[in-house]
């Protein structure tokens, strides 16, 4: 009952005209940017984040959350219509969404994607509402050793589960941690690594890293690849309505996808991508019409889209309840929180209940806004893909510079933007995880302060940490995450060896 009344209060607050307007603007802008290939949710949020700073905390955070959810959905629009994913997690949607479009069912694919996103988003917000209080109460028992190990777990899990080379990802984590130590150290009051330059005293702003490594670096990759948008199918409004059969076939994948997304969103790493792949694999495994997958199976759109949006809700749990972002978009949300003077964490629900529940209600309202806006405006979104490439890139570069400068009003941030853009481009070419750099950068202050406090509390005795039950559990998880990829690889190799052996036996 307490949760229901708190949530009702949140909904009451969200129906303020200013909050509703910022919500719709955030969702619309996010969807627009998400449609445009290359920028992605992180780049979009980073570029637009400074705009939210001009608003009051509730409006600013809701707008940023709207941009996040909108850009997740927007990526699927271009994936379905032109076979170009707007962002990484839309790659899976493309597998069946684009074939559906080629068969003249683009409208149905878009509608199912929107409805699936809405269903999963609503489900994940409901789950967030249910777990928020119990998890927050549990997290209040955490102290610096627990936060230290959770932060370590986040970085280790990201490095092991992201895919690609774990060694290079660990190196990227080290680099991100190094960047975070530049400038004024609040713990000791001294300035580190400023190289005698006053411009470096305030350190590096996360916006410069995010926009540089994700926004401008993608522009550089786009500039050299010279991709062009080709044919786009027409999508009449009346074609947007799925049939009864379409809805019946899609309902199960939507719910399963939403649950998968929420659970995987709780874990560190690119949860949107991982959950959409996981959902696709599950639906393909249990479907009766397996042969249709890859050729326009509607479950191949419903499940992954639901999982993608469900993961957004799941990712909000560690951010709001623990104050730790487990992926790049929530890292930027944390930056938004920090600038607004809001500190998420175990005490957030009690210290700022109105803002907390307004934000939760805002997430739900954003899902409604996505459904209301994205289907009727699909024509407008697709027309954005006709924007000439040179004009699009010029606008993004100018916006990126403005967004980065406007965060603090320091020109040095544009210098960092340029530096991070070059590094992001090189990292992308070398297969070094940029997400790891940014996440390490954002988590570093928590990691360092927890480390220092733990050392003081324990008097340098590591047994102090090892004796705590929650710490033992987290350490166990860290070991599992470190070892699991090797075990699964070994198991897969053994399965492969057995099947070859079996084939030889069968043939003899």
């Amino acid at each position, binding site marked *: 009952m307490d949760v229901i009344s708190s949530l009702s209060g949140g909904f009451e607050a969200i129906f303020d005209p200013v909050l509703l307007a910022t919500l719709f603007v955030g969702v619309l802008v996010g969807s627009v940017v998400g449609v445009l290939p290359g920028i992605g949710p992180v780049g979009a949020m980073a570029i637009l984040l400074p705009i939210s700073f001009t608003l009051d905390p509730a409006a600013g955070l809701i707008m940023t959350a709207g941009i996040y959810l909108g850009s997740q959905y927007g990526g699927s629009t271009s994936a379905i219509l032109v076979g170009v994913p707007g962002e990484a997690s839309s790659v899976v949607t493309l597998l069946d969404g684009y074939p559906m479009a080629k068969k003249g069912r683009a409208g149905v694919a878009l509608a199912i994607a929107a409805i699936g996103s809405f269903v999963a988003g609503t489900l994940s917000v409901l789950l967030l509402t249910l777990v928020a209080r119990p998890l927050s109460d549990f997290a209040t028992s955490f102290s610096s050793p627990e936060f230290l190990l959770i932060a370590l777990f986040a970085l280790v899990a990201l490095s092991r589960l992201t895919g690609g080379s774990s060694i290079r990802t*660990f190196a990227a984590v080290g680099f991100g941690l190094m960047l975070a*130590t530049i400038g004024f150290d609040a713990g000791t009051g001294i300035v580190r690594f400023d190289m005698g330059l006053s411009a470096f005293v305030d350190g590096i702003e996360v916006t410069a890293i995010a926009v540089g490594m994700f926004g401008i670096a993608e522009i550089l990759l786009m500039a050299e690849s010279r991709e062009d948008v080709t044919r786009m199918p027409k*999508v009449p409004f009346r074609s947007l309505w799925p049939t009864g059969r379409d809805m019946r076939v899609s309902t199960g994948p939507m719910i399963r996808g939403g649950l998968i997304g929420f659970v995987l969103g709780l874990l560190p790493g690119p949860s949107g991508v991982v959950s959409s792949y996981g959902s696709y694999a599950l639906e393909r495994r249990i479907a009766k019409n397996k042969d249709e997958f890859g050729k326009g199976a509607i479950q191949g759109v419903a499940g992954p889209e639901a999982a993608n949006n469900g993961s957004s809700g799941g990712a909000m749990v560690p951010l709001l309840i623990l104050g730790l972002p487990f992926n790049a978009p929530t890292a930027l949300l944390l930056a938004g929180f920090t600038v607004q003077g809001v500190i998420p964490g175990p005490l957030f629900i009690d210290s700022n209940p109105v803002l907390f529940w307004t934000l939760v209600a805002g997430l739900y309202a954003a899902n409604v806004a996505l459904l209301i806006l994205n289907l009727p405006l699909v024509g407008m979104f697709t027309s954005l893909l006709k924007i000439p*490439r040179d004009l699009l890139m010029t606008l993004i570069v100018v916006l990126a510079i403005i967004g980065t*400068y406007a965060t603090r009003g320091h020109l040095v941030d544009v*210098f960092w933007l*340029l530096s991070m*853009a070059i590094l992001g481009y090189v990292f992308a070419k070398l297969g070094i995880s940029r997400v790891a750099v940014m996440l390490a950068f954002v988590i570093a202050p928590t990691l360092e302060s927890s480390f220092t406090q733990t050392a003081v509390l324990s*008097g340098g005795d590591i047994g102090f940490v090892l004796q705590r039950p929650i710490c033992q559990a987290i350490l166990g998880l860290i070991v599992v995450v470190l070892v699991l990829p090797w075990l699964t690889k070994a198991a897969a190799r053994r399965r492969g060896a057995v099947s070859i052996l079996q084939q030889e036996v069968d043939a003899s």
Partner: protein
Amino acid sequence: MSEVTSSPHVEAEPPAAGPLWEPGDRFRLGFNFAGVALGVVFAWQSALLGLGDPERPGSGLFPLIAGVVLVVFLLIDALRLFVRRRTWTPGTLHLSREAMVVLVAIALYLATVGVLGHALTASAIAVLLLTSLGSRPLFPSVMISLGIGFGSEVLFSALLGLGLPSGLLGIGWSAWM
């Protein structure tokens, strides 16, 4: 909704960019060693800040750990590369002109905004980008660029209240007001 095609009959298409830049394993090895050098210097400077003791870590301990993490894992990656040196993939050194123009544009903004202010500087870099990345004639590019430069000044400074530089010439919303 009309369809957009990459029509071969369109006049004055920008020239083909050529092959993409693909860093080979030699570049990767060199990059790793540069990173190791950076990490070593960083770790050394961290040690100079003071490491404190186990009961009270100094301000240099955490950066030292970060530097060590970078050095160790880059060295491991370099070693793995070195072990398979017989099968190194060659790289290409085709740096894209378009990508370089984007970087030059940002550098130009950094260099001139203090004098010219945001509106003029953004217009200038927009001209550079539009003429380099596309096939638009100069006059329309300049018109569009002025729209981008001054339009962004009005939108972000006037309407959204984000301060943008006016420069020494005082060309900006805050100077106009």
